[in-house]
């Protein structure tokens, strides 16, 4: 039994299209049409789709989030800044920026922070989430990654980019129990069903990212 209304659940969801990658304009429009009456936390599109999506999502009253250095987190900082600036120019409200996960795993924490700070610096007042790849990290590493994001001025974490990187409720609980209200967490990657979503929320997730919003919300 659900303890949360569908409206409340939708308001915690960053919804993305899923299905075939490289969506056509028609497929994107079909996705926007499937959102139903709900107000989501945000609708996620890829950077090249922001210009197309912006007027439609404005009309629908939805926030628009796009993804930076995604999904591999392997862009150079200077490129991430250009990509982020372009996204903002095209009309993105929020950015999900992937951490330089190689730099992190190599122990180059200075680079990790500088890289995220470069994005934070150009996104004043906007929601920016840092993707830290919890699926690749142990608990200690996840906590360190969260610390680095905070150091860079980002207090919203996104666990994984999807594409096979799966988030567990434990990943979420670890961060929330350690940092409390200092940090927000969006559970992303492998959150496909209504039950998955409830489990993440029970673990303390502030938001859910899903490419199967219809399943999560029990829509047609």
């Amino acid at each position, binding site marked *: 039994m659900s303890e949360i209304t569908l409206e409340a659940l939708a308001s915690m969801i960053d919804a993305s299209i899923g299905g*075939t*990658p*490289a*969506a*056509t*304009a028609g497929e994107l429009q079909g996705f926007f049409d499937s959102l139903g009456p709900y107000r989501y936390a945000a609708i996620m599109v*890829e*950077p*090249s*789709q922001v*210009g197309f999506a912006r007027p439609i999502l404005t009309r629908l009253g939805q926030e628009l989030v796009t993804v930076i250095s*995604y*999904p*591999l*987190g*392997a*862009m*150079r900082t*200077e*490129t991430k800044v*250009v*990509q982020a600036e*372009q996204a903002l120019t*095209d009309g993105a409200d929020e950015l999900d920026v992937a951490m*330089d*996960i*190689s*730099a*992190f*795993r*190599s122990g*180059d924490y200075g680079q990790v922070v500088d890289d995220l700070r470069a994005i934070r610096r150009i996104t004043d007042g906007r929601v920016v989430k840092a993707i830290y*790849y919890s699926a*690749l990290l142990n608990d200690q590493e996840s906590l360190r990654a969260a610390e680095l994001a905070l150091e860079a001025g980002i207090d919203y974490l996104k666990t994984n980019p*999807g*594409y*096979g*990187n799966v988030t567990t409720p434990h990943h979420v609980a670890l961060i929330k129990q350690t940092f409390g209200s200092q940090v927000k967490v969006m559970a992303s990657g492998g959150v496909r069903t209504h039950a998955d979503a409830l489990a993440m929320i029970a673990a303390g997730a502030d938001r859910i990212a899903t490419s199967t919003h219809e399943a999560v919300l029990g829509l047609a």
Partner: protein
Amino acid sequence: MITTRAQLASYLDQTNLTLGATCGELETFLEVAVDTGFRAVCVLPNMTSLARRITAGTATRLATVVSFPLGSDVPAVKVAETRHLLDLGTDEIDVVIDIAHARMGHEDAISAEVSAVRSLLVEEQLLKVIIEMPLLTNEQAVAAARAAERGGAHIVKTSTGFKGLKLRGTTPEDVRLLRSVLRPETGIKAAGGIRTTEQALALIEEGATRIGTSSGLAILEGFLERGPGDHALPASPHPVAA
């Protein structure tokens, strides 16, 4: 006709695009690759400085990827990323097209974005354009390949090989299709799921002038074991374009 390991190695872009690989892992990968004599190494953008340092002064070319793996950037961002990477001394750029354009038949948009990136390259720098055939029909792939060629691609590359999308591997039929529609001087790079000597040789037989693989060592090792003279192959066209 490939009769030696060295000749086969000259077709191979030894690749490490592993999510979250450390600098230590890449250093080892690169040092072995340079010693082995591959045509090129292919690494992610955040590893290009490191790779440039290790490949400098060697015969191994440095390739990296732009807008990888999704290609879902506007041309201005692909141009910026390309500029950043060329400034570091990269020799070869493997750029992913906006695959949605290919799925919608927007060939002029593909030519335009390829041309914008191509305009940054000089002299011996090579542009490979990834059309992501596993996501396209044959008709879409042919149109995209031709559009990439019109835009100035030196080499058309079949696929990103990105594991996160669970794409099918590149097949000899893919290469045959491209070879049948592209100009003879346009190279073809086969990439995605290429693990064995047999696969590599079959793709080269159909006209692949470059193979992208993370299994370059195994592919070379397999060739030595079977001995030379088993495969008669066409001469590789124009060394620079290949």
